């Protein structure tokens, strides 16, 4: 809750600073807000109810350990992203304050999604997360691709919201409540309409699949990711995905656990389909951002494995999701940071843009390499532990799915390595090396340190839940 308040106030301060034409202050302000919120959530970790502000609010919020750790993870990603805004938003000088404010608002939504105890809150959280993003996706207003991204994202997002809401309504009809604990109680009582509940859960599942872009509801993602400004794409593929999957987990673990027999098969099918479709399609992509879009979809497929671990007391699915989202976010942000500099040098968005980067800018290339290795889940990068934790969490119940996931991660190497190959083994096409902005240096350095730390001490994060 503290983090939420800090972020909200921070967003308003940034908005007003933007109105007051204090351009130089904006990025530091946003960063401070994000870091303060991060600090607040980290300080509250493991305190239970001791801090007083963190327990349930009229059964709507529960800033429990689960919410706090995901908050912290998201805020790490957000802080890194804000570090990139100085240069990344340089073309948006007149609306910089608004854009930063919207990012912070969006994060508020993510926080609500981590902590909801009531379907109403989930719904509001999703919308607070999404609505600023629809705008941010189109923040390059004179660019048609950006416009298209905004429109597609908006239409698909609202469509998904509609489906999600219909599901919620049916669940409400079946269980007479929006409250997660009461839904769970009603389901375990058995005094409910099974048909309505099942259809409701299915529709909610579809709606959330749209939000985290799981197949077959992923078709919007590549266009949106490609069209949006790079920074926003990074935001969408990290924070949004984290929020979506965390909410997904909480909803199904706390609300629908009683109906697991019904939905787990569906989730497994979606997961399998997502992984296979995304990875096979990603192979054929020539554009880096599109590739990252498909990669992000495939990661949604892996993340669903964590959902499948619900109900298995021996496995720590939440911890696995936490760790995975953290490493995935950091690696993705790194990759996008490097890509943004590269895109500046070479307007072509294809892999050829990376040609010869290893010689031109070794540090950048190194960052990109580490990010790609981490995304591919190659040991000993932190990404490996993420995959490892996730796969083990679902191994008991769904060995075939884990095998499929493993095969898919192997496939994914092919396209992640395309970048590495271009960087190190291809001849450069132009020798223009855009200077790496200071903010990017710091972000990359921080990300590097974080990846290293996560590699060395994966347990520290994994065991937080």
């Amino acid at each position, binding site marked *: 809750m503290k983090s939420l308040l800090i972020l909200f106030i921070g967003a308003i301060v940034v908005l007003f600073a933007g109105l007051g034409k204090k351009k130089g202050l904006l990025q530091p302000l946003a960063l401070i807000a994000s870091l303060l919120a991060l600090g607040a959530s980290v300080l509250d970790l493991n305190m239970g109810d001791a801090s007083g502000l963190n327990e349930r609010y009229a059964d709507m919020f529960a800033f429990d350990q689960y919410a706090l750790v995901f908050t912290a993870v998201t805020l790490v990603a957000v802080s890194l992203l804000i570090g990139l805004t100085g240069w990344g938003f340089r073309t948006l000088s007149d609306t910089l304050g608004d854009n930063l404010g919207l990012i912070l608002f969006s994060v508020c*939504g993510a926080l*609500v999604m981590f902590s909801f105890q009531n379907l109403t*809150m989930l719904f*509001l959280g999703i919308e*607070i997360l999404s609505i600023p993003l629809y705008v941010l996706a*189109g923040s390059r207003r004179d660019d048609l691709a950006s416009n298209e991204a905004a429109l597609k994202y908006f239409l698909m997002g609202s469509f998904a919201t509609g489906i999600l809401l219909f599901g919620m309504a049916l669940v409400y009809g079946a269980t007479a409540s929006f409250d997660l604990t009461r839904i769970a109680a009603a389901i375990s009582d058995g005094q409910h*309409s099974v048909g309505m509940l*099942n259809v409701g859960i299915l529709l909610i599942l579809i709606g959330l699949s749209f939000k985290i872009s799981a197949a077959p509801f992923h078709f919007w993602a590549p266009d949106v990711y490609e069209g949006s400004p790079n920074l926003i794409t990074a935001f969408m593929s990290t924070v949004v995905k984290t929020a979506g999957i965390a909410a997904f987990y909480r909803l199904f673990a706390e609300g629908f656990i009683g109906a697991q027999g019904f939905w787990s098969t569906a989730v497994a099918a979606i997961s399998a389909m997502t992984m296979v479709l995304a990875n096979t399609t990603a192979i054929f992509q020539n554009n880096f951002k599109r590739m990252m879009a498909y990669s992000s979809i495939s990661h949604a497929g892996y993340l669903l494995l964590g959902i499948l671990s619900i109900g298995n007391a021996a496995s720590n699915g939440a911890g696995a999701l936490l760790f995975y989202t953290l490493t995935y976010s950091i690696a993705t942000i790194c990759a996008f940071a490097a890509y943004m500099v590269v895109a500046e040098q070479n307007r072509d968005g294809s892999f050829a843009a990376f040609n010869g980067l290893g010689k031109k800018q070794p540090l950048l290339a190194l960052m990109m390499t580490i990010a790609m290795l981490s995304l591919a889940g190659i040991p000993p990068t932190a990404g490996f532990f993420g995959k490892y934790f996730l796969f083990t969490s679902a191994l008991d119940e769904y060995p075939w799915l884990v095998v499929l996931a493993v095969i898919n991660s192997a496939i994914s190497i092919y396209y992640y390595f395309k970048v590495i190959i271009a960087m190190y083994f291809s001849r450069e096409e132009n020798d223009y090396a855009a200077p790496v902005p200071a903010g990017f240096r710091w972000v990359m350095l921080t990300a590097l340190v974080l990846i290293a730390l996560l590699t060395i001490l994966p347990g520290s994060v994994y065991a937080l839940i």
Partner: protein
Amino acid sequence: MTLAIFLTLAVISVITALLMVFAKSPVHSVLYLILTFFTIAGQYVLLNAQFLAVVHIIVYAGAIMVLFLFVLMLLNLNKDTEPQKSAGWKLAGAIAAGSLLVTMVGAMHGSIQIAGAEQSNPQVGLVENLGKVLFTDFVVPFEIAGILFLAAMVGAVLVGKKDLKV
């Protein structure tokens, strides 16, 4: 009596909804949709949710659809410039939506029952009652909705702004 009103309203709302989807001109679509909204408001009244009915009219018919009309008129989009999707695509859409409907109804048919049907508090839809619930149990989402609105407002302004530079 009630059933008859319900059925009449239901039939009208389905027909107007279909007309909305099939109307060639977007302005006609908007108007059909408004009619649908009126029938839905009628259903709310039938359900003794008067406050809801009025708010529904104010928000949907009075604000949202006006906004739609506005945009349509400002952009002068009524020309039938919309290239129709191919018949195959339409068929696919119809099959998809139809199967969705059949699945949903089929899955629920026969098992629809309401858990708390014995309780009877006809006053539930009245404004006093709603206000109490909204400002006690649901005050947190109410506040949170404020963030949503602020964000949406900033976003809408940002999107609508003309570029100042160049």
